[in-house]
Structure formats: C-alpha cells, structure tokens
C-alpha cells in the first residue's frame, strides 16, 4: 500500500468523511477497508481527489470511523444499537465493536450489563457462556441460544428430552446431553449449530458392539479434541464415555467400579497439567460424595476422595460442588453454607480442610435454596450462593467482591467465558450478563 499517509475522502450516504489510510488500516485485512486498499483493487478514484462513494448510513459510519480512530465505541442516542451492529457486519468490523464494548474480564470490576428475561415455564438447569460472549441456557427440555449481542437464535432440543448439561464446542456448535427415553433411542448427546439450531450429529454409546441408549450427564472437553460425558446406560453401563470431536466416534469408555460413582457425575473437569479428568458426584444426587481423578491412558483412578464413613457433624457439611485448582495442587469444595474447603491433590484419601468464614449465613437460608456452585477463572475463584456470587482472590482465597442483583431469586447456575459472566436465576427465568467495562480513558 503506497498510500499509507494519503488522505482518503468518502461519501457515505451523502455525507463527506475524510480520513487517512493509516486509520483505515486498523480495520485489518479481513474487512471492507482492508480489501479496498489491497493492491489488487484499483484505487484511482479516491486518490484523484474525488470522494469514494459508499451507499451506507453516515451516522453509523461516523461511529465506526471513530472506533477505528480511537479504539473506543461511543454510541450516540440517535443511533440504534442494532443498526450499528448491522453496519459493523457490512464493513467486517463486528469483532472490533465487540471487543470495544468491554474490557478484559476481571472478577473484581464486573458490572451488570444486561438482564434477559426468558419465557420458559420451568426452572433453569444450566447456563453456559460461549467463547465469543454468547451463552446458552437450558430450561427443562429446551436450550435457548443467545449470541454476544444477546439476541436469541432458534432454540435447541434433543427429542424434547430433559437436558442435563450443555457445552460450547466452539462458537458455532453447542453440545447437549439429555435423559434417554426408554425403548425409543431418544436422548443421549447431540451436537447442534448455534446459528440455525439444526441437529448436526448424535453421539452413540456402544457396548459389546451394540448401540445402546443412554442418559448423558455432565460434559467436558479436552484440548486434544475429545468430548467426555458421564453416562448411565440401561443395564450396568455406568461410567465416563469419550468421543472424538472430529469423527464423533466413541473412542473410550471408563466403567465405574462397584461402590464408586462415575456415571451419575455432576461435574467433569479436564486438567491440562496432569492430563487427567476430574469426576465429581455430589450430594444430593447420591447419598455420598465421590470425587476422583481418572487417567485414561492407563485406565486407572489416580486420586480419589469420598465422604463415605466420615462422621456427620452437627452442622452437616456436605460437599455440593467441587473444582480442581491445579496451580494449588488442591480440589476446592463448597458446602451449602458456602464454606470453602480444600483437599490436597497430592495425597490420595486426604481430608477436607474447611476454611470457615461465613457462619453468618446460617439461619438466613431462603425458602427455596439453590446449591452453591464454583468456577475458576484466571486465578480468581467464584462461588454462587443464594442471590449473589462471591469472588475470591490471592493465595489464601480472600473474599474480594460480591455480585448481587435485587430480583430474580437464587442463582442456580453461572458460567464465565468470552469475557463475560452469566448468572441464571431460579425464579422468573432471568439471566444476567456481567462484564468488565472498557479500560478507563486515562
């Protein structure tokens, strides 16, 4: 591009804009402006001093030009947001708009950006943040998909069976695990297009060379393109199934051993450092909690913990959620009073070291409690309890922030991804989107 510093004149929908090629270069090669300035295309017209005509909305163009100039997005009142997004799509600048809308995720600087009210009749099951800021919400047998503009796409369902877990394979695909329906082959696990809601693939479980129907529970993905799901078969086929993301074929199955639970697990978590899978089955799905670390290469359980035989204390601390923190070599657990506990991952059969901190909660339990959930993001630990989410930081996990909104009732699930935190409330089918505001001007 020999015209880097040349002044470019545009006539956009009748209004004249002048800018430099350098400013437009900020749009990147994969945009309208990038292609326009490529040597392949003849750019005689604007250089001749004549303006370059674009048949688009000048107000939106002004906003987007400022975005290219300053990196900040400022939307005046007279520009509808939806129109701006449309225009950004035309110029190929939608990625710029999205990243300018919010800053890098920080649990201590979150602001509520939007609350979305759904129309599902039942209680929410799960909410999952997508990689590019969208989310999907499971209610009963339906999954509603929202893109990063929080616009709803066609909903998904797997034979209208009750959904147990959902997950984003990538920005275009959502995975659903659902209950089976006896004798019909319904349910199991399916892959859907997040744009159109089409079912693209249905995963099978094979035992003894026979395809079996099954109920899929918790889901998890690994960076080497595998899908893990807890499975309950018709007979004794309980365990963790493994599928290949490209071929969709089942490549492994880890059967649970008697006296231990894998097939009904509430939570799966892939650990990159040790290349093991954390499987947690928790109260009240089972009478006891079972947490284990599976090594699929050797088909062995390399670490396990259970509260079987542990004396029930007066305040009855039952583990309700668990998350492995590889950096600290421990598993963090939480009970229904939002006490955090830690189990050492380096020794098998250790005990929970509770850090009692929120005794005040006792006696203030709402009528319809939701079980607490845990999440870990960039060294920050998040824990949901009733209608708020607590953020813990530092080596000792000090409580640093609490996110709360006045209505919607208890939070039954939350998820972090695409620089956003989504919290699903149990009442009113409301979910909130929290995000970090753009970096300050100075």
């Amino acid at each position, binding site marked *: 591009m020999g015209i880097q510093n040349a002044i470019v004149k545009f006539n956009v929908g009748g209004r004249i804009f002048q800018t430099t090629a350098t400013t437009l270069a900020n749009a990147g090669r*994969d*945009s*309208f402006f990038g*292609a*326009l300035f*490529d040597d*392949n*295309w*003849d750019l005689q017209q604007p250089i001749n001093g004549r303006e*370059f*005509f*674009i*048949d688009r909305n000048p107000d939106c163009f002004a906003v987007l030009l400022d975005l290219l100039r300053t990196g900040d997005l400022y939307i005046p009142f007279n520009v509808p947001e939806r129109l701006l997004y449309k225009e950004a*799509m*035309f110029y*190929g600048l939608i990625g710029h708009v999205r990243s300018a809308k919010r800053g890098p995720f920080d649990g201590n600087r979150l602001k509520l950006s939007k609350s979305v009210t759904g129309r599902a009749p039942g209680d929410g099951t799960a909410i999952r943040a997508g990689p590019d800021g969208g989310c999907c919400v499971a209610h009963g047998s339906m999954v509603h998909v929202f893109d990063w503009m929080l616009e709803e796409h066609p909903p998904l369902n797997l034979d209208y069976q009750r959904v147990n877990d959902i997950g984003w394979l990538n920005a*275009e695909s959502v995975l659903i695990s659902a209950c089976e329906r006896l004798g019909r082959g319904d349910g199991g696990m399916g892959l859907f*297009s997040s*744009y*159109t809601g089409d079912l*693209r693939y249905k995963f099978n479980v094979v035992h003894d060379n026979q395809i079996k129907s099954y109920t899929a529970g918790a889901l998890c993905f690994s960076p080497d393109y595998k899908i893990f799901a807890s499975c309950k078969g018709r007979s004794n086929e309980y365990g963790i199934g493994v599928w290949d993301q490209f071929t969709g074929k089942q490549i492994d199955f880890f059967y649970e051993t008697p006296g231990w639970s894998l097939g009904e697990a509430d939570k799966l978590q892939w650990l990159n450092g040790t290349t093991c899978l954390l499987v947690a089955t928790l109260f009240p799905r089972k009478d006891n909690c079972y947490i284990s670390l599976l090594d699929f290469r050797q088909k062995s359980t390399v670490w396990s913990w259970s509260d079987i035989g542990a004396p029930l204390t007066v305040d009855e601390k039952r583990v309700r959620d668990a998350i492995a923190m590889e950096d600290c070599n421990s598993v963090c657990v939480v009970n229904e009073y939002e006490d955090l506990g830690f189990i050492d991952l380096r020794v098998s059969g250790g005990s929970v070291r509770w850090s009692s901190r929120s005794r005040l909660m006792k006696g203030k339990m709402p009528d319809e409690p939701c079980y607490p959930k845990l999440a870990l993001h960039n060294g920050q630990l998040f824990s949901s309890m009733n209608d708020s989410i607590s953020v813990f930081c530092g080596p000792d996990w000090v409580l640093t922030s609490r996110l709360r909104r006045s209505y919607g009732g208890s939070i039954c699930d939350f998820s972090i991804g695409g620089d956003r935190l989504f919290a699903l409330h149990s009442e009113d089918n409301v979910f909130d989107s929290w995000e970090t505001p753009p970096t300050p001007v100075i």
Partner: protein
Amino acid sequence: MSNQKKRNFQIEAFKHRVVVDPKYAEKTWSILEHAIHEIYNHNASGLSFEELYRNAYNMVLHKFGEKLYSGLVATMTAHLKEISKSIEAAQGDLFLEELNRKWNDHNKALQMIRDILMYMDRTYIPNTHKTPVHELGLNLWRDNVIHSSKIQSRLLSMLLELVHRERTGEVIDRGLMRNIIKMLMDLGSSVYQEDFEKPFLEVSAEFYMGESQKFIECCDCGDYLKKAELRLNEEIERVTHYLDVKSEVKITNVVEKEMIANHMMRLVHMENSGLVNMLLDDKYEDLGRMYNLFRRVPNGLSTIRDVMTSHLREIGKQLVTDAEKLKDPVEFVQRLLDEKDKYDSIISQAFSNDKTFQNALNSSFEYFINLNNRSPEFISLFVDDKLRKGLKGVSEEDVEIILDKVMMLFRYLQEKDVFEKYYKQHLAKRLLSGKTVSDDAERSLIVKLKTECGYQFTSKLEGMFTDMKTSQDTMQGFYASHPELTDGPTLVVQVLTTGSWPTQPSITCNLPAEMSALCEKFRSYYLGTHTGRRLSWQTNMGTADIKATFGKGQKHELNVSTYQMCVLMLFNNADRLSYKEVEQATGIPASDLKRCLQSMACVKGKNVLRKEPMSKDIGEDDAFFVNDKFTSKFYKVKIGTVVAQKESEPEKQETRQRVEEDRKPQIEAAIVRIMKSRRVLDHNNIIAEVTKQLQSRFLANPTEIKKRIESLIERDFLERDNNDRKLYRTMNYVEEGLVSKSKRSSQLLVSKTEEDGSIKILFVEHKRFNDLCRSARLVTPLMIPSATLPSFGFDPTFTWPQKLLISKPRLPRKLVAFVTSF
C-alpha cells in the same frame, strides 16, 4: 462501462428493500459473474470494489446466498477448465512454468473474489456449513486442474524426471520445483502425499537399490560408506530446498533401507576392508561413519557390536592363552591395557561413547581375562612391578592413571579373592624389603580396592601398613632403652601381626652368635612392654648389610638376605666349608640353602664365594671358599637371591588350595544368610542366590556349593524336604530371638522379627550382643523359658552362655529348636 452499469443498477430502485424485483437476483448475480470473468482475464482495473461488495452483501441479505454460492462454484469451475486446457497445451518444459503461472493467477483471482464475497464468507458460509471461498478455490483447482487426466500423470512424471536429473548431477530450476511442490502442499497434505510423495519414494527406492548394487560390487567398505553418507546428505538437502519437511524422515528411511540395511552384513564382513580391518587399523573416520550410518537402521548398531565383540574375544583369547605371551606377566598385563586403550579410544572417537559399546567391551574383557586363571596373579605382579620400580619419576597424576587402569582390569576378575591373596604376598614382600617406591601410591591403591570391594577386603592390607609403622616406633623404643648398643651390629625388627600377613611356616635358622644375642635382647624388651604375646622369628624374610674385606684388601658392603648372611658369617672362622657343613651349621632348609648358595657362588659379578667343582647347580658334595679375587666396580654390592618371581607350580597349587579353603566358610555363611530369610528354597535357587551374593569376591563353583549344603545338612542346620528332595528347609526355627552362632566364633547370627512380619537376620559381633538386646529389644523373654535359663534376660551385664551355643544336650527340645550350634 462501469458508469453504465451503475446507472442500470440505480434504475432498479433497489433502495426500496421491501419490494424485491423478481429478476433482482439474476441481475445482481450477472454483475458479479461478469466481475469474476474480468478478474480471471486480468481486466480488474475497471471494476468498482465497493459496488461489487455491496451487491454480494445485498444478495446474502436478501436470502440469495445459495444462488451466489452455487454461481461462484459454477463460474470458477468453468474458468479452471479453460485454464486446464491451456496448461495441457504447453509443450515440454514449458508445462511446469505454465502451471506455475496459472497457479499464481488463480491465487490472485481467488483473493479478489474472496474480497468481494467477504460478507458471504463471514455470515452465510458458517451458518450453512459450506466450504469457505478460499478453500473452495483450492478444491476446485485440485479437481479441475491437478487431477485432470491429462495433467496429473504428466505433472508427476515431470517432477520425478527433474529429481532424477538432479540426482545424476544436472542442475535444475529449484525455484520452479519449489513453487510446484508448494502448490501441492497448499492443496492439502493428502494431495502432496498421493500425487507426489508416494511415487517419489517408490522411484527413489528403485534408484537407490540399483545404485547400491553397483557400488557394493566395485567399492570397498570405506568408500561405499562415504558414498552412502553423501547420498543421504543430498536427500536431506533436497528436502530443505523444495520438499515438505515431513518428507525428510521418509526419504532418509528409503536411502537408509536401500543403501545400508539391505547390505549391512556384506559391508561389515567385506574382505580386507570390513569392520574387523577398520578396527585393526584404527580407522576412526571410517568407523565413525559406519556408526553414524548404521545407527539409523534397525539392528545396525547391534550388528557392529556383535562383530566387534566376537573379534575382541578372539584377540583377547589369543592374548591370554598364548603360552609365549605368558612368560612375562608385566608384558602380559601391559598388552591387556594397550588393547583396552585401543578400544576405549575407538569407542570414544568413532562410536560417540555409546554405552552399549562400552558394555560390550567390558563384557568381552571380562570374558577373556577370566579364561586364564593366572590373570589375578599377573595383575598383582604388574602392580608389584609398577610399585617397585615402574613409578619412579612419574608424576602423581600419571600414577593415578596407571592405578585406575589396573583397577579397571581388576573389576573384570571373577576371582577377586585370588587376587587378594597374591596382592597380600606381593605387598608383604614390598613392605619388608623396603622396596616400595611410593607410600602414597600404595595407599591410594588400597583406597581404590576398598571402594571397590569393601572394608573386609582391605582390612588386613591396612593392618600390614600399621605393623610397619608400629615397628618403627618399637625399634626407637628399643634403642632408647639400650643405649649401650651403639657399637656392634644393628638390628631392625619388624613385628608383624599373625593373620594380617601371608606367613610361610618356616624353621628359624641358627643365627650367628652376635645376632642371636641381640635378638634375645629385643625379645625380652618387647615381651616386657607387651604382655600376652609370642614372638617368633621369620628368618626367611629378613635382609642384612655386611661389610666384607677380600683377599687383596678390597672392601665391599654386601647387601644380602638373612640366610646368606648366616652362610657368609661361617667363613669368618673357616676357609673351606662343604655343603653338608653349611647345612648343619645354619639349619637352613635345603631348598632355600641351595638357592642362597647359588646366588653367591654362581652369579657372575656377585660371586663372593667360590665353589668346587665349578658348575651351575649346587650338589650335596660341593665345597665352598671365599672368593678372594672378587671384584666389583661398586662399593655396595647387592646379592639377590635367585627367586622365581612367578610362582612355581607347587606354590601355585598351594595358593589355590588355600583360596579354596578360605572360600568354604564364605559359601556357608552365604547359604546360612539366604536360608535364614527364605526358610525353604530349592536347590537351583540356592545356587543362584549364593552365586549372586558372592559375585563381588569370586565365582562360586556349584559343586562346591552343593558340598557345603551337604555339610550343613550333616551339621543339622538344613534338612531336605521329605516329599521333594530338591527342596531344602532350615532347621532353625526362626521365630524370635537368637538363632545361632557362626563358625567364626566372633559372630552371632541373630534373627529379628520386624513389626511387619518380615524377618531380619543380623550378624552381630559377640560383644555387641548385649547392646543390641537393649536397643533393639531383639529377644522376647517369652520364647526362652526363664526357668531353664535363669540368667537370661535384658540385663545389660548378661553374657552369652557359651555352653548353650555349642552343645545341644541338657536343653529342653523347644529351645534346641531355636539354637543350633554349627
């Protein structure tokens, strides 16, 4: 032209989005189609990007994405078919150039088309899971151009032809080659592999098969390897110039297989130039090349290693069994060391210090050194030689190097205890005759032996050094307490501890009167200062310095052995003495006496005595005179005794017998240790375990082990199983407490039941037993009925009842079960 189009467009009044002209899609598409034609025809300068982009955008927006996409596929396909025809038409070498040019054109066009259709690429394609524009362009190129029947085979044969021409030394256009190969890679790894790599590898295999056949007929091994290396490097270079990096492993595999793996045996065994010749001639470069090339193929290194090992064993066998070469032990060992040096440097310089080669070298040495059962003796003699004279003027580091080399040979020995025996003898001689060159070197070797074999191995050797030191102090004390002894002969006594030194039982000879008086004085002094000791003279090991005046007044100082001194002193009182008279007067054993007379009467230059008749050997009837005519240019004359440095045959037998005798208790101790822990074991396993335990000292003979086992059975320590005669079980009931006392009276065998149920067997010094009882709570009183043994318990003053250990009678049966004497 573009103005006219714009006008047409505006007439369609498309701003009213609600009303869509039924022909709208057709018209818009025709504009875009036209643009695509213009782009392919290099006529894009007249096109308006903005207009085309907007049109494509509008088509997608108005749900004509499908039409746009299928139109694109059709248009591009049509163009590629035309392109394919023009490439087909290219003649000869121009074909590749035309292909390359069209490929560049297509890429540029594809980029521009993608620019126009960017909105479709970003929204419509992911939603419908269609192939993105760029990938689509590559796929269509692959299907319509590369896989067109008239191009595919022609392209392949031209590429292979170029490679072949380059292999035969021609210069080719590598840039063009790289571009074409790059195109195949851009089309996907499967295209590259199927359309080029696979046939390329096949053709290469064929080429190298032929070439290697040609080379192996006419080249010697070294030249062949050079050529193979060159070819290998050429192929690697080819890959870096114009092939996919992933092909490197594949093509080198082909060369390795065809040029090396298939001819490995023939190369190694090639007459006059194979591996053995390289080893003989120290051809480091060739060996290194062979190593590096063979390393690349399966079994390559093991082939080299096997040939080297068998060659080395052959050479080594010759070295250690050739009677001619056994004459001089020092030479013998030196040859071994030279051989070791030679192969060490081959391995370090040519075989990159490969551990497996070092192991092969070690095992070969171990193999052939032990073929000759005199190796331990010779190695000890070599050390003796070095420490006597060889190390003079050699720096400390060099001494260390020599000693380290000797230790290396020592490590190969299986019969280390034999070495120890000889070493002790040789060390004793060195110490007593004061011939040791360097005390530091001696001690350093002892330290090395200690680290190699443990304290037990060297404790006696160290005791010898201590004796030497104490003797010096004793002599100072003796002369200090006898100040009157300044005149007359000087006596130097070295007091040796029995057991530490190799003693040869000898009869004390009759010393001259002056000497025996002095000896008596020393004896009374020594016994006066040390109680409870016995002193016996070893006259066969001493030396003496005497002053002699011969017939013409010539004076000499003679350095002789004690025996020789006794003989010479006789001539102070007599001119002529017969052999019988000498024998009677001195009381020296006949063999020693003959040897000592021989050395004084028959050795030229040292003949202080004269003998009648003049002959080499000493007869019973010979007579001896002082040789008045004795002359020597030196004042001091050293008269050595004629001694065989190497052991004579009977001596050898004796040493061997002693070694065998010493091994017995060691084998027994090992059997006891093993049986204590195993309780029941079959014959073969006992043999195996005993051999393993004793490996560091000697290689136990299975028949000897069997004899020992039988002896232990006789002594009620072991018994045979009633059902399976091959099975032995220990009679000792090793539940708790004391078990048995070993034959060497200073040690007790104690077993201890650990908390986890395992049983530990300890050898405990007798006097430490009480401490052990206190600290480890070894013995449970319950197991020993206190009524029978009232004195037994944990009392620190407890002493072990000797009777109990040695005899069975009078003890209740139960106790006999734990305590067995043997």
